[in-house]
């Protein structure tokens, strides 16, 4: 793809989308793994409530999610005020876009990872415990490596979803070029203008190429990891 195929502003949007999606996934992955583990392994009161909460962004129209984010994490929101006080404010910042993307992608990530936790043989974990590994070490040295293919799948799926997320993002952090104007926001803008469908199409292609590459890479990685684990 020649660099002049896209305008500098469009490149900025592409770069921003990559950054937002990347950090959305990286930052939410630990929580995603933890949540998946809790849902797969623990029986605690409120487990179904947690499960429902995780699924909410999948169920709600994205605009509603974005609005709820605005209410909570905006400057006037309870969480936003707190973060602002800590100098970590996300309102109108790319970190806010990442937060929106992360929340929208979270259910997909958790579902994929949860299934691989459910597939881990607990007897291997018992074996590790008898060999002197504490719960944390068992998790780090046995469970986590065994769920790696699922974690990869979940992370990449979340990345792909984050690359396409629009409704919640623009509602929450609006569209500020260079700061919060992601690829989908730019695509949306083009679609509002008569005759700009061609420009929208170029950006759609970029977005699809990036997301599908990630997806294919993940299938390949997951297969390799699965082969590694099953031997050979």
């Amino acid at each position, binding site marked *: 793809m020649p660099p002049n195929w896209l305008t500098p502003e469009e490149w900025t949007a592409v770069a921003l989308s990559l950054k937002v999606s990347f950090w959305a996934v990286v930052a939410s992955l630990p929580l995603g793994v933890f949540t998946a583990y809790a849902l797969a392994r623990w029986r605690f009161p409120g487990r179904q409530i947690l499960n429902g909460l995780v699924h909410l962004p999948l169920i709600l129209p994205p605009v509603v999610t974005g609005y709820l984010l605005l209410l909570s994490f905006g400057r006037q929101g309870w969480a936003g005020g707190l973060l602002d006080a800590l100098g970590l404010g996300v309102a109108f910042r790319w970190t806010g876009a990442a937060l929106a993307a992360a929340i929208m992608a979270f259910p997909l990530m958790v579902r994929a990872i949860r299934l691989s936790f459910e597939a881990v043989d607990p007897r291997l974990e018992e074996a590790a415990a008898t060999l002197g590994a504490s719960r944390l070490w068992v998790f780090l040295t046995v469970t986590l*490596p065994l769920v790696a293919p699922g974690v990869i799948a979940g992370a990449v799926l979340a990345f792909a979803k984050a690359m396409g997320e629009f409704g919640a993002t623009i509602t929450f952090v609006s569209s500020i070029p260079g700061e919060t104007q992601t690829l989908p926001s730019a695509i949306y803008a083009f679609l509002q203008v008569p005759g700009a469908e061609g420009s929208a199409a170029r950006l759609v292609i970029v977005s699809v190429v990036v997301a599908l590459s990630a997806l294919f890479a993940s299938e390949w990685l997951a297969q390799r990891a699965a082969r590694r684990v099953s031997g*050979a």
Partner: protein
Amino acid sequence: MSLSVEIRHRAGAFTLDAAFQAPSGVTALFGRSGAGKTTVVNAVAGLIRPEAGRITLGARVLWDASARIWVPPHRRRIGYVFQQARLFPHLSVAQNLSYGSWFARRQGRAPAAKLAQVVEMLGIGPLLARRPATLSGGEAQRVAIGRALLAAPELLLLDEPLAALDDARKAEILPYLERLRDETQVPVLYVSHAVSEIARLANTVVALEQGRVVRAGPAEALLADPQVVPTLGVREAGAVLTGRVRAHHEDGLTELSLRGGPLLVPGVTGAPGDHVRVRVHAHDVIIARARPEGLSALNILPATVRQVHQGAGPGVAVQLDLGGDLLLARITRRSAEALALAPGVTCHAILKSVSVGPADLGQGAGPGEPDPAG
């Protein structure tokens, strides 16, 4: 170091209520499927938490229900070899082996056995770079044993480590277990329902039946006890004799010296003077009052009848004294009557050399006689 176990536990319809002591050496936990063997071992390992009881290893209390003491599995310093090897599929053989030793070292304990020693003892040198999935069942089980050993355990638990293997694989591993028993100091709790394994390995036998200990004691005495025949199953009854290698003959036979006299068996590998244990199936022993001549059987040993035990079927179990060693013979009631066998009667025990197979010939210290080198 001695293990003391006292457990009361319920799981569904099953109730376990067992108490026993496992002195140093190999203690075999024997019983049929569903007797509760794995439940006991899991309780010792800390993988289940029974309802009531107490488990101590030497001076350490691993669990005491009434005192609310509970040492979690990873602090119990045990090595557990499971029925299926349970190797970590994502780690190489070498990494599997050093998994436990890494934690042991973090806790400031050094494995008694060095990696190189263990690898050599188990013959797994060529496997170190491989992944578990590519190992045969026997190889995997050897690696699992090595892994447990290298965790610097103060107690080894082996739960039917050979059950998943075919006879050839079993024969391949048993010598390693014998070396384990003889070359390391670690006490072993060994679960099996195969009498042949127990006869080769155990110093002490604890027999479980429906969650209860029905018999416990030194292996030599227990296995030669005619009363135990029904517990073991008639086909499996047989005594374990211990002795030393006396000489290797040119025609491939090895002469052993037992308390009761010389015994010829198919070739054994040990050097003259080495300890050896021989299991003699009760159904392989023939009894004669007068010394018979012109038989193909090479071993005709003078003996004295000590007990005659009548079972439910057509057979009787006869305990013979061979100059101090105990031998068990199973013959028909008809023969016992024809020969007028009764305690105190002198007779001859006839035993074919070839009826002692490789699975019955063990090396190293006898159950009643701890190896001086061990």
